[in-house]
């Protein structure tokens, strides 16, 4: 369980969050979206204790992350967008570090590596950036931590690997853990992330489940632009539209157009999705 209450954070004079409040619960794969520089990575780092937050404003699993206590750390793993290249082989890295995580499943780790077609006996430095990422993702998921924070996990992966990633992540979620995925590649992770959190400068623009989004807005393709559309985007067959769902029709949520619509109509979304305006 993650509880953020009135979290403020800044890098010297650059104010990243001002009174941000969020509550995240187990059993979900959260999608953390936002433009460059809105603080997605900062939020993940605050949650994993890599950056300093005030004790009363950020609690993760009942712990203040910045204290970095072993009991807290054994249930949290943060995979950065560009992980470092460690010494030695993939297998050795997992063996050396995985043993500190009580739920680490070595067999699962090797299974994931096999699915990603990464050889465990290869040295990290001999792997391409994409393969390194796959090795890290395998390790991160095999740790079985209750909280898993993934920063752009699909970046650098080829198309088949992205499919494997979706399949593995979907299979790893359960009632006891939750995963937060920060991404710009929303198409890579569509059908996987739910609920969606869209961050704006300093606060949250949208925090809603896919079901709630589908109830309140609809995504349709039309030959022409429509005036009542919240957002329209030109596509080869006409326009992709986001409209208020006044008729109760059930449409598939298109995360990319949703994201653009939210950015264009911040107040409308805040009002209709009851996101606290801070």
């Amino acid at each position, binding site marked *: 369980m993650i509880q953020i209450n009135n979290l403020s954070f800044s890098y010297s004079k650059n104010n990243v969050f001002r009174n941000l409040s969020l509550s995240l619960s187990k059993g979900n794969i959260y999608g953390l979206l936002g433009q460059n520089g809105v603080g997605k990575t900062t939020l993940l780092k605050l949650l994993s204790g890599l950056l*300093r937050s005030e004790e009363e404003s950020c609690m993760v699993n009942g712990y203040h992350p910045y204290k970095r*206590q072993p009991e*807290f*750390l054994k249930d949290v793993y943060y995979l950065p967008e560009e992980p*470092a290249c460690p*010494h030695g082989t993939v297998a050795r890295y997992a063996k050396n*570090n995985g*043993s*500190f995580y009580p739920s680490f499943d070595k067999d699962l780790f090797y299974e994931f590596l096999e699915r990603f077609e990464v050889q465990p006996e290869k040295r990290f430095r001999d792997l391409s950036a994409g393969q390194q990422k796959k090795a890290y993702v395998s390790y991160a998921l095999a740790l079985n931590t209750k909280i898993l924070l993934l920063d752009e996990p699909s970046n650098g992966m080829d198309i088949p690997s992205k499919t494997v990633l979706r399949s593995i992540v979907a299979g790893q979620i359960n009632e006891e853990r939750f995963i937060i995925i920060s991404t710009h590649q929303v198409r890579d992770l569509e059908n996987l992330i739910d609920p969606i959190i869209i961050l704006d400068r300093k606060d949250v623009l949208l925090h809603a489940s896919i079901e709630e989004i589908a109830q309140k807005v609809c995504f349709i393709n039309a030959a022409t632009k429509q005036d009542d559309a919240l957002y329209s985007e030109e596509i080869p067959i006409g326009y992709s539209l986001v409209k208020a769902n006044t008729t109760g029709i059930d449409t598939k949520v298109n995360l990319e157009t949703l994201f653009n619509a939210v950015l264009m109509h911040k107040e409308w979304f805040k009002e209709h999705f009851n996101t606290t305006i801070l």
Partner: protein
Amino acid sequence: MSNLFNIKRFYAFVCKEFRELPGKYGLTILSMIGGYLVLLLLLMMLGISVSPFTRMTVIMVYVMITIIFAPSKLYGNVNHARKGLCYAMLPVSALEKTISMFVINFLCTSILIVAGLFAADMLLYLIVPSRMEGFLLNYETARLFGEELIELFFLQSIFILGNIVFKRQKVTRTFISLIGIGFLLGLVMLLVFRAIGLENIERLADSILAEFPKEINNWNILSYSTFNSTYRHIPLIRNIIIIAYSVTGLITAACWVGVYRLIKTTKY
């Protein structure tokens, strides 16, 4: 499990760090041993025979270089914004990480380099004993080794702190900082001396020197054996040396407290 210190977790962490040591620093240690062998061989080829005391002095220089560079080689990434994440996020307490850093940096690295250099020396002694002027270890060299090792621990503590404080060029910046601090202290002392009066300082120095026994052969004030045999019986010098020991101990402790605090609070 305790969030401060757990012996099982600590042991597992030290073992993990020790397993990683050869990959990070093994080649440097081997190069140092090779360098020592080459140096001795060169001296032999030039017809120079080397006494055990000289060899032990050379060995201590090699050990000093090795342990000064050890923190940056073994733990150079711990405060790196990207490379240090794995270290910071590992479920081990800051205290365990600090003590493990001491164990790996000082104990393990020293044991490896000393064992390697001693083995290299012994090998040459067995092959060409005529050029070696005796076995490396005797009373005098063992005493030198013990005393130097304690001083190296003090020195390395400073470099371990420097390794955590500085993000890049850790060894160079620590050296420069030490020179800077030395310069500032010298400046402060000069001002104090001028305030007291240079004649008074001169008188005090003369009175201290007058207390020194004539037969003294070791001017290293941190040498415990000299302290024990000679200085201990001269109150004025004993007090000065006790203050020097205390300051050294305090600086070492401050370095370790600093390392602990930085491991605990570094932001990434």
